[in-house]
């Protein structure tokens, strides 16, 4: 159980010396309970208190960084069960499985797919984050060979080394020294040997309950044992493979961690979603994204599939309190001149990126006036009274765009056609033109005007 403010207070020096920056020890304790400050700020706290508090104030799901450098992935640190309570923290990792039974060329092709999987959406760069190398051959030599191809072909991509054979693990992990890989495959038969290797190479250890069904009981016992062997960073697998079991185990794990601060299950969860059929695999991945997986292993990464799961991950992990927004200003698209068209829209990221993308597609250099509507879409902002004729007029006047352009024509979104008259009334000397409703009509609309 996480400690309450009062419980924490009892462990503090109670001198109210203010060195922590808070007026009293109690105030500091309250902030600690809400995880909004760090115990390090109090210089006088006793060792004993530190230990007690350290254990209790550690995040319920252990923060772990997988991989290194630009492509390193943060996992864990989650604090809630439902996204409406508070933002989910670290988006799940998508990893492509590569079996060591494939030919060298097939392996290279898969690596290439991972390396070229990046897609930009709403200003974020999204990609397949990791590779899971599988020792399906059960052969150490083949495993090593496949690992070498990956280590040279994708040196920056974080790797999950999947084998339950300590010998194979030892042979391969060397290739990823100092790259913080995950060694997946510690179970009740090989825990000691695997823990040794993970410690030696400072890797994260993937811990699994037997697929035959020891479940969360077995898993908890295993992580405790491994922790006592000196390995702290783990990712866990309950053995669930069916949709129903994944949902159940992921829920019970997250609940135990968040609601009871149950440490043996307070680790990121790895989910194996592979299926023969790619669409069906996508839907199993949906369960993982929505319901608490930190790593999802896929058997194929077609572009259409990536776009869908990346988008879902983005949706589920956005902050429910603040819509993603862009800065209010006049954006230049292409190289507009004083005769170029001027369009207006709201500062909801999704709206901005869709509209600016279509203006770009039109190849007609333009000015896009993006107005602060607290991150609401056009219609929502209009319905909420934030995208009104007087506010738009005021924004245009104050934006200074009148210095950039010679004409006085403003193109407004088709959905708010109703505003055109009243904007003309308020913006003296201006003409308002109603654009298409959907942004995908913008290219044809802009081109037809210049033709």
């Amino acid at each position, binding site marked *: 159980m996480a400690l309450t403010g009062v419980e924490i207070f009892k462990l503090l020096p109670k001198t109210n010396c203010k060195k922590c920056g808070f007026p009293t020890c109690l105030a500091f304790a309250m902030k600690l309970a809400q995880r909004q400050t760090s115990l390090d700020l109090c210089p006088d706290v006793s060792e004993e208190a530190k230990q007690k508090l350290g254990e209790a104030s550690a995040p319920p799901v252990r923060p772990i960084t997988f991989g290194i450098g630009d492509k390193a992935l943060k996992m864990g640190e989650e604090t809630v069960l*439902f996204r409406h309570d508070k933002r989910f923290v670290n988006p799940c990792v998508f990893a492509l499985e590569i079996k060591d039974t494939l030919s060298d060329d097939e392996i290279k092709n898969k690596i290439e797919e991972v390396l070229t999987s990046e897609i930009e959406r709403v200003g974020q760069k999204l990609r397949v984050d990791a590779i899971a190398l599988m020792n399906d051959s059960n052969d150490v030599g083949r495993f090593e060979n496949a690992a070498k191809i990956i280590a040279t072909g994708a040196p920056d991509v974080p790797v999950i080394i999947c084998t339950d054979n300590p010998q194979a693990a030892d042979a391969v992990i060397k290739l990823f020294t100092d790259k913080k890989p995950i060694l997946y495959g510690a179970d009740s038969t090989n825990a000691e040997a695997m823990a040794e290797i993970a410690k030696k190479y400072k890797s994260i250890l993937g811990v699994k309950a037997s697929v035959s069904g020891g479940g969360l*009981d077995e898993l908890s016992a295993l992580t405790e044992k491994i922790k006592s062997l000196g390995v702290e960073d783990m990712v866990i697998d309950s053995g669930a493979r069916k949709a129903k079991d994944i949902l159940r185990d992921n829920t019970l794990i997250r609940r135990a961690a968040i609601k009871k601060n149950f440490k043996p299950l307070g680790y990121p969860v790895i989910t194996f979603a592979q299926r023969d059929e790619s669409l*069906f695999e996508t*839907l199993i991945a949906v369960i993982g994204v929505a319901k608490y997986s930190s790593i999802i292993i896929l058997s194929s990464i077609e*572009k259409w599939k990536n776009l869908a799961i990346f988008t879902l991950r983005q*949706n589920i992990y956005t902050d429910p309190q603040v819509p993603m927004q862009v800065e209010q200003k006049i954006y230049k698209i292409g190289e507009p001149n004083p005769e170029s068209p001027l369009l207006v829209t709201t500062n909801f990221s999704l709206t901005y990126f869709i509209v600016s993308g279509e203006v770009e597609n039109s190849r007609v250099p333009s000015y896009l006036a993006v107005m602060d509507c607290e991150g609401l879409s056009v219609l929502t902002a209009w319905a909420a009274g934030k995208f009104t004729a007087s506010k738009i007029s005021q924004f245009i006047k104050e934006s200074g765009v009148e210095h950039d352009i010679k004409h006085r024509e403003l193109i407004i979104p088709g959905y708010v056609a109703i505003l055109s008259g009243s904007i003309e009334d308020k913006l003296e000397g201006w003409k308002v033109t109603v654009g298409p409703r*959907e942004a995908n009509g913008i290219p044809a609309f802009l081109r037809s005007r210049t033709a």
Partner: protein
Amino acid sequence: MAFTPLKETYPGKVYSVTIGMGNKAVTFGGENVLPFHAFEGIVPNKPVVAYEIQDMPPADWPENVRKPYEGVSDDPVTWAKYCQDVLKARAIALRLISTHPDRENRSPEDAAKTVSDVLSAIDIPLIILGSNHAEKDASVLVAAAGAAKDRNCIIGKAQEANYKTIAAAAIANNHKLIAMSELDINLSKQLNILVTQMGFDKERLITDPMCSALGYGLEYTYSVMERIKLAALAQNDATMQQPMLGDIGMYVWKVKETQASETDLPQWGSVEERGITWEAVTATSLLLAGAALLIMWHPKAIEAVEKVIEELI
């Protein structure tokens, strides 16, 4: 430290709703736990997916979702029979889209005729939807409800602006009713209260908190659904215990990702698979958030979603 699973039991329960007649009737809702949490409570029914058909040819549907219905979608009766007999639909949702003033502005009498024609051709349950023009729907759905009298259909959607007439027609003709509000748990609750205050039985109501597509506000629908579900279970709030609808198809098949060609956007991959996946992913997410009834368009997306339901239940 031994592990004891933390099971959640709740005082509340979602109403179960049965639609249709005889051995083709289907029931959804009825659970007393979060979606698919059979490990800690009862989940007596699986969610139902209804195939959407329309009362005029779907000329405005993207090609990839028009194709599977080529040759049958010119006529709602043929279309309905195709869904029932060939695609093995468990339910059909007939959208009377032609009645919209901006479309063909067809009369309520025309709509009523279409409804009776479709009903005489099928024996699976029917959901009857207006064109989402609040004013016109009030007259169209009254006529449609009459034409479907005693067939235990769902009529929808009743909104704040028109619920009185539509709810009255549903009562008079023994139907279930969809109450739709716009992505706000309080509005949804308020509409359910208004409808039941008219004497409409709260156990015959279906809540539509409004759908939004993957990438286009899905997270809002997702969270409103989760919050409604928690209010129903944990707070035992009888005005939130109605099963929820996800009206997936019409929101999904208008977004760019379901239509843009691979030539224009090579980084997005095959447009056909992309569209199907977009619909199936939107649907599966909303099932996980608590939807019990889905209305969908593409047969392949429906097939995949039904398969995932089988594995979740």
